[in-house]
């Protein structure tokens, strides 16, 4: 198994250790706002375990994916919703 994976976050490539979550990859790029709340506030991960839905982003075209429960795959296209 290769030791790293590279995903693309808002058009920027980021390389992570294999097995990393998408949420960690997004934060590694320096982005902290994953989505906008109902009133437009920037939001980022809170619970880290799939319960709070604050880390939802668009992954390979699918909206509302919990990035903290999605493992990085090579070439994955990640778009934050903020």
């Amino acid at each position, binding site marked *: 198994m290769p030791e790293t994976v590279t995903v693309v976050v808002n058009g920027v490539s980021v390389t992570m250790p294999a097995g990393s979550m998408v949420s*960690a990859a997004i934060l590694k790029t320096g982005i902290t706002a994953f989505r906008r709340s109902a009133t437009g506030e920037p939001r980022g*991960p*809170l*619970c*880290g375990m799939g319960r*709070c839905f604050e880390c939802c982003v668009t992954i390979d075209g699918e909206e*509302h994916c919990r990035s903290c429960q999605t493992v990085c795959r090579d070439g994955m296209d990640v778009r934050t919703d903020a």
Partner: protein
Amino acid sequence: MRDAVIIGAGPAGLAAAYGAAKNGLRVVVIDDNPAAGGQIWRGEQAKPASPEAQVWFEKLRSVDIQLITGARVFQQRAPGTLLAETPEGVSELNYDSLVLATGARERFLPFPGWTLPNVMGAGGLQALVKTGLPIDGKRVMVAGSGPLLLAVAAYLRTRGAEVLLIAEQVSSMQLARFAVGLVGKASQVFSLKRQLRGVRYLSGCWVTAAHGDGKLESVALTRGGKRWQVSCDYLACGYHLVPNVELAELLGCVVESGSVSVDQYQQTSIANVYSAGEATGIGGLELSLVEGEIAGLAIAGKHDEARSLFPIREQQRRFATRLNQTFALRDELKQLPAPDTIVCRCEDVTFARLSAHDSWRAAKLQTRCGMGPCQGRVCGSAVEFLFGWRAESVRPPLLPVRIQSLIR
């Protein structure tokens, strides 16, 4: 051959799976995370870091178990049949016996600024770091309540974080009383103490606000009437844990004081449904393991063997009772939210809007509090603490699912 389905692949679920599989049941373990281990053994299926994880994953390799990860149970179609959403579609799980080992989540309390990015749960930040977030050289404030804060701080430190302070809301007197009874856990306490050498630990101290422009920049703290502010990159803040009881409630199991009610064999109020671990009350790793073992043996009909574990469980339950008494929340924390502080993060419902109502139902109907994607999993325990309202009903789907999963 009888079928057992275990919900949750953390310590309790894995221990139950082992006991059941060893005694001839066909066992399926299902978890919404991408790997087994739960929160405490996150990432340890591939690479055990703790001796307990090593022992249990080794044991599990000796039995035949089907593990389904990345799957979320969202509905019971009929008694004995659960539906789970997987990345590929929907799986139907048929069981003769069911074990709910759904674990716990952190309790979050609202305070001004808690919705800023980089304000996270204590376990939340730990989970992110365990799954690839570099924390080397970052300034982290750890705050809230419970033994998890110490474990998180120690872990973050091993990964190179600068832990500025651990702020525990419980008073030093309460902590001292608790510490006296920690004889059985002395080695764990000692090892944590060594890992945390040089880190400031303040009891009777809590975060009153988080500040920042678009993301966290600093944290305001209070202790004994004194107030001060500290700059930091992350705030890891959680107020102990709350059991995940939603699935149990959906199935109709009796839930009391926020925990799934079980009898001596971990059986719930429904005959073929069992529950083990944090879902039945917060008690930590050892209690989860022994409850899981008892549940697994019981569903396999090995009641004598299960009974032989009762004394260990009893000892761990006594510890759990003391733990939960010690880390009870102080009333001052109810004063933390300002009128414009958001309580329900999914629907952006403020404290002031909730204060206008007198029940969870009224607040829900008028403000949409608890009706967003998390379905009250974050604000529910906060609202219960702040207003004393308890969420009333759980309905399918248990979590937001794809339309295709519902119309199949």
